[in-house]
């Protein structure tokens, strides 16, 4: 606790202020800057082994393949200042779907900016510095134990509740995922991260969210953390973030097609009281996470550094209830647990993760992207209709039983998710990794259309991915 005493904190603040004030007068040499060039290349293959919901897209047996390369430069400008920038390109393709769409699949190149940031580290010691400021496009992951499921505070939307996960997404492999400003402070056993970041993936674009994550690490074996994300706190266009203009955002009032509250786009009418409830994409996420290294009890033995770690995370996606659509907070709380199975250095890690999320609607942000609707996707959005007997779901000419997941408004079979991820680094420059999972993997759709849904909707579903990468 001495470390957290006023004198140390005050000294740190003084140093920070002094550094900022001195900034203009720093006269660092601009000529001979060490620039380290790093690169990475990889090929990835995988297959969806089972996908239950085949009414619109049939991903069963779909093969996935990609190849990528990136190059990054790290400029050590001074002990305090470091700049990073990188460019990458990925050769990808849409999911194959059925034979009719599979024959149209084309391979495309997706370029990307992998990093573009610079960092000021007070005192220049990256490990021991009490203060670090990062600006630009940078990676941030508050829970590095997570290999796949979790990271709820910084991934996904609030209204509607969407979760994101998949095989080696950018958050879990150190790629840039935040555009804005990040402040990191370490004071003894406590660390703090404050982020102001701009939305660049999900509409409405560019809104700024303010997030805070605090961690307490009393020993190397134990970490406890908590955070809050004021998602879209600063909207760039308030009329997009809180859509109200009926001439722009179509609403369905008395359409005969409407079968449920999820079939509307922008509002909910209480059938009892007649209240009209409207929504916003803004929301507050709160979350907590913890990890414990069981080797602190068993001893290291022949185990690897990552073996026997257990970790967990839970979050509330949206503190505010909205009558009719978001009534029950317990349905907005995803929880995950992870365990690094002992692999005795045969692998770097082998992580088993399990998640429960009791949301009753589909994990799909199609309505958000296409209709600016904060209401979850309903049957009508997907072109599905339940017949008058309530027994059959129609989609186009297809007739399927009215059961989970064909009726996307009362889904429970996707509440459980799991993932097994393993990786091994060879000769410090080659990495082999793989995953089998039933997670929130989104294929992105087939050659004919974009989709925003997860591919897996029941516990029977799963896929596998393998990746061979080299880096320097």
């Amino acid at each position, binding site marked *: 606790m001495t470390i957290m005493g006023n004198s140390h904190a005050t000294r740190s603040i003084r140093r920070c202020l002094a550094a900022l004030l001195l900034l203009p007068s720093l006269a660092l040499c601009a000529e001979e800057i060490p*620039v380290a060039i790093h690169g990475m290349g990889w090929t990835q293959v995988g297959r969806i082994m089972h996908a239950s919901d085949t009414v619109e897209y049939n991903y069963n047996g779909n093969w996935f393949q990609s190849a990528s390369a990136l190059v990054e*430069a790290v400029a050590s400008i001074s002990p305090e200042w470091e700049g990073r920038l990188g460019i990458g390109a990925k050769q990808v393709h849409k999911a194959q779907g059925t034979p009719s769409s599979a024959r149209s699949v084309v391979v495309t190149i997706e370029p990307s900016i992998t990093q573009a940031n*610079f960092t000021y580290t007070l005192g220049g010691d990256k490990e021991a510095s009490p203060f670090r400021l990062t600006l630009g496009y940078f990676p941030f992951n508050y829970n590095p134990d997570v290999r796949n499921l979790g990271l709820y505070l910084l991934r996904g939307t609030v209204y509607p509740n969407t979760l994101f996960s998949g095989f080696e997404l950018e958050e879990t492999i150190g790629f840039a995922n935040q555009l804005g400003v990040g402040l990191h402070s370490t004071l003894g056993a406590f660390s703090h991260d404050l982020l102001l970041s701009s939305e660049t993936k999900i509409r409405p674009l560019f809104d700024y969210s303010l997030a805070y994550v605090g961690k307490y690490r009393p020993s190397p074996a134990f970490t406890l953390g908590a955070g809050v994300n004021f998602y879209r706190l600063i909207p760039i266009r308030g009329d997009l973030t809180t859509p109200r203009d009926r001439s722009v955002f179509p609403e369905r009032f008395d359409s005969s097609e409407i079968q449920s509250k999820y079939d509307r786009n922008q509002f909910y009418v209480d059938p009892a009281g007649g209240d009209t409830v409207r929504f916003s994409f803004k929301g507050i996420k709160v979350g907590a996470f913890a990890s414990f290294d069981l080797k602190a009890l068993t001893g290291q033995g022949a185990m690897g550094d990552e073996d026997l770690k257990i970790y967990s995370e839970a979050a509330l996606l949206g503190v505010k209830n909205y009558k009719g659509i978001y009534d029950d907070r317990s349905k907005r709380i995803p929880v995950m647990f992870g365990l690094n199975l002992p692999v005795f250095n045969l692998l770097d890690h082998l992580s088993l993760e399990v998640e429960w999320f009791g949301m009753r609607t589909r994990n799909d942000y199609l309505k958000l992207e296409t209709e600016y609707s904060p209401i979850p996707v309903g049957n009508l959005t997907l072109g599905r209709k339940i017949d008058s007997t309530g027994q059959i779901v129609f989609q186009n000419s297809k007739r399927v039983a009215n059961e989970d997941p064909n009726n996307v408004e009362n889904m429970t079979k996707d509440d459980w998710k799991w993932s097994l991820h393993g990786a091994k680094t060879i000769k410090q420059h080659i990495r082999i990794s793989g995953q089998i999972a039933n997670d929130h993997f989104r294929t992105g759709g087939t050659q004919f259309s974009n989709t925003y849904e997860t591919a897996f909707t029941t516990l029977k579903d799963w896929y596998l991915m393998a990746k061979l990468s080299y880096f320097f």
Partner: protein
Amino acid sequence: MLNKSSIPFKFRAAMAAALLAISLAPAPGHAVGSFTNLDVTFKGAGWLKSGMVMHSTDTVTGNQNYYNNYNKNWMQDAGVLFTGIINLNEEMEAAFGIGAIQKHPVQGVLKQAKDVKLGLNIFSTQSRISWFPAGKVDPKHRFDFGLFPYKYDNNIKNLGLYLIRGPVYPGILVSGFEAKEMLNTANMMGAHMMNRFGPYTQDLVFTSEQDFKPLFDVSAIYVGTLKLGNAFELGSGVNFYHYLPVRSDVTSPSEKAGFDPSRKLEGSVPHPFDSYYAVNVGDSANPVYTWAEHKGIKLMGRFALDPQALLGPSEVLGKSDLKLYGEVGVIGVKNYKGIYDKISERIPMMLGFNIPSFKVLDVLALEVEYYGSKIVPDYRKLNEEVSAVPQSPWVNRAAPDTGAIPYSQMEYPAGKDDIKWSLYASKVFAGHVKISGQAANDHFRTGGTPGLAGKSYEEALTDLKDWYWFLKLSYFF
């Protein structure tokens, strides 16, 4: 086999350098670590930029019910670039690089804003080989080949550089916040020769057109600069724009080449500039056509005065403070009857002054421009129809079916944009971090909005009331 001694050393060196540069692309299995065996200096930059159009008078350019209203539009992009400079020997170097900008169209009105998507523009920063016959330090002679940066006035922060930016017919100007000419990013593709003879420096550039149609035509540019002491600099130049056409029938359209002189697109009010390729200066019964060509001659004169060089060094003033500079151009020496009748309407002029900021900023540059052109500063017609005739003020107007006055009846406000201004500031911290910003009413083009209004080529600011701002945080090494 050629006898080694029969080939001049310089030629052999150039060939070796070119082969070496080509071989830098790592082949499969080629260790990237081989870079360490070369004398390569990496330069890089990354940035985050945000801004807003604060006022834009003309809100009805566009297509059908979709129009470009830029008022209060937020703009944001992030970018990176790398350039590797290879020191081949004492006289030669090569440079190559790549950059990427993550950007989006401006938002327009609400129904367009909801469709905004992020895109990524990839570009080559440089791809050149350079020869310094008398050495690289303070070079007296320099030759560049490939894709390279060139500008003749380093004082300019926004407005100006008329000789090397924009087409001749129509005489459209180009400027904006930290355009590529200001960032040492390649803007010329071809060859460049620089020679310094005492106080006189000459630049000769042959460059292939990359921005405006007809593409690939080669222009020949000559710029002479005379330095009178450290205080005064005079310059002038000429650009034989598109004088070496790749396809002369496209650059100089004619009936013989298959162009129909009567082809036109009429707006809600007929206008001579509805024509695509030729304007009828006779009557309808006896048409006499003036054919507009894409090639033309630009002239330029400029000066720069550094009072600090006359007054002596100052402890309180920054290095750039008090500099005064100006430029005047002629965008097309030749008149075309019925289209480009007055050369006085083709003479832009600008004046810049670095306001003293007493080392608080590196530069605080106020620039003002006058350009009496009465044509619509929109190159849609040039790039989509390869037309050298200006655009009619009555086309590219949206036509919503509501409102007291249909937008198609609202003429483009050409002529109210004669005066432009720009206030640019920048400061470099710690040698590698730069904060820069600009408030301006210049020739900024947004590129258009999402949806049917689509890509646009017009200026966003058409009235003296109009302006925008940008702020940029960048680092470089």
